Every structure is written in C-alpha cells, then in structure tokens.
C-alpha cells in the first residue's frame, strides 16, 4: 500500500483522471472530494462489501429456487 501525507485542501491524482481532495479534517472524520469519470463507480467500502455478501448469500441453484418457490406458492403476499 502506498502511504501519502496530505493536508486539508491538498489532493492526489490516480491515473489521468481521478482526483481525490481532502476537503476537511475534524477529529477522526475526514471529508474527501472525488472527481472521477462517470464510468468509475465509487462506493463506501463497507456498503459495497455488504452488497457483495448479500448477493453471495442470496445466490442459489436454479433448481433449488424453483422448489423453494413452489413451497411459497399459496402463501404469497
């Protein structure tokens, strides 16, 4: 991991077109501004990991899903 020291108002550049700027620092809370091309998705890491994990937990074999849904029929909604 590359480690850099930055002050409020300073930035780092990643590649040609991603700029991350330290907007403010208050205690242990840092506000970052991120400029990136629209095709680059930016997420809070813990939220993205929660989505990944939720998807992995939700994935099932197609045949099993069909059996499960048969069980649910009649109790829908």
């Amino acid at each position: 991991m590359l480690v850099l020291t930055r002050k409020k108002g300073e930035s780092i550049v990643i590649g040609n077109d991603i700029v991350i700027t330290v907007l403010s620092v208050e205690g242990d809370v840092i506000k970052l501004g991120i400029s990136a091309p629209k095709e680059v998705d930016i997420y809070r890491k813990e939220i993205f990991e929660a989505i990944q994990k939720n998807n992995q937990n939700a994935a099932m074999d197609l045949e099993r899903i069909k059996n499960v849904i048969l069980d649910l029929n009649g109790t829908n909604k």
Partner: protein
Amino acid sequence: MTADHVHQEKANLTIAPIYSFPKGLPGFDQLKEFLLQEHNEVFSLLSAVDQPEISFITVNPFDFIPDYEFSLPDDTMLDIEVNNREQVAVRCIVTWHSEREKITINLLAPLIFNVESFKAKQIVLQNTIYTTKHPLWSSSEAVEEGGDS
C-alpha cells in the same frame, strides 16, 4: 444525481431475455450475462447464463413496498443507455430463508434493467434509509435493525 424519478414502473418482462451486466454483479464480478425469467406473477428468476447454480429470486419491489422510491443516477442511465422511463424495469434480490418471516429483500441495491437495450446494473443507493435486509412480507415502515446505509 437527479434523474427520472423511478416509481411504479410497468415495463413488461414477459419473455426471458438475456441481460448484459457490463460491470458484473457485486460478489460475482466475473459473471456478465444473466437470464431474467418470469416464474409467476410475483417472482422472477435471475440466473447466470454460464452458471445456473448462481441464480437469484427477484421481485418487483413496488409489489411489496408500494412507496419504495429512488432516483436513477445519471451515470447509471449512461451505463445502461436509458433515455426514458419506459425502458426501465426494477427488480430486487430476495434472500430466501426457511423461516418465512426471515426472508428479506435488498432495497439498498436494486437491479435496474433496460428492457430495450438489454443492459442491466445493480446500483447502490446513496443517502438512503433502505437496507439490504428489509423483511419481504413486513408491512411495517419501521426502520429495520442492521442498517447498511
């Protein structure tokens, strides 16, 4: 981040088209193509074309949470080439559980389908109260525990 207001979409998904997820599905980044099949009036099945063991139960969230709403981000509209709301269908992934009351729906990360271009993306809503584990059959509007937002 403003965009067409997505609410109560009505797009029909009567056939079983193959949708391209250019960015994959979080957790399954290597899988880019998924078949969306209507199973019955309530449930549709999203299956990886090359790996049917990776399949998901999905529902139209508006069937269960009538006041569910969010704005489609501009970058998503570009990603899946959306020009108007008639092209958009929304599904949410259901996490099945043997105890019916523990079945949940992921409202934080809805699946957005362009029914004309057959491109799709799972988006992550920003600044929202919705979670990945909203009870599917609860009509309660109370904020659920374990919030991811």
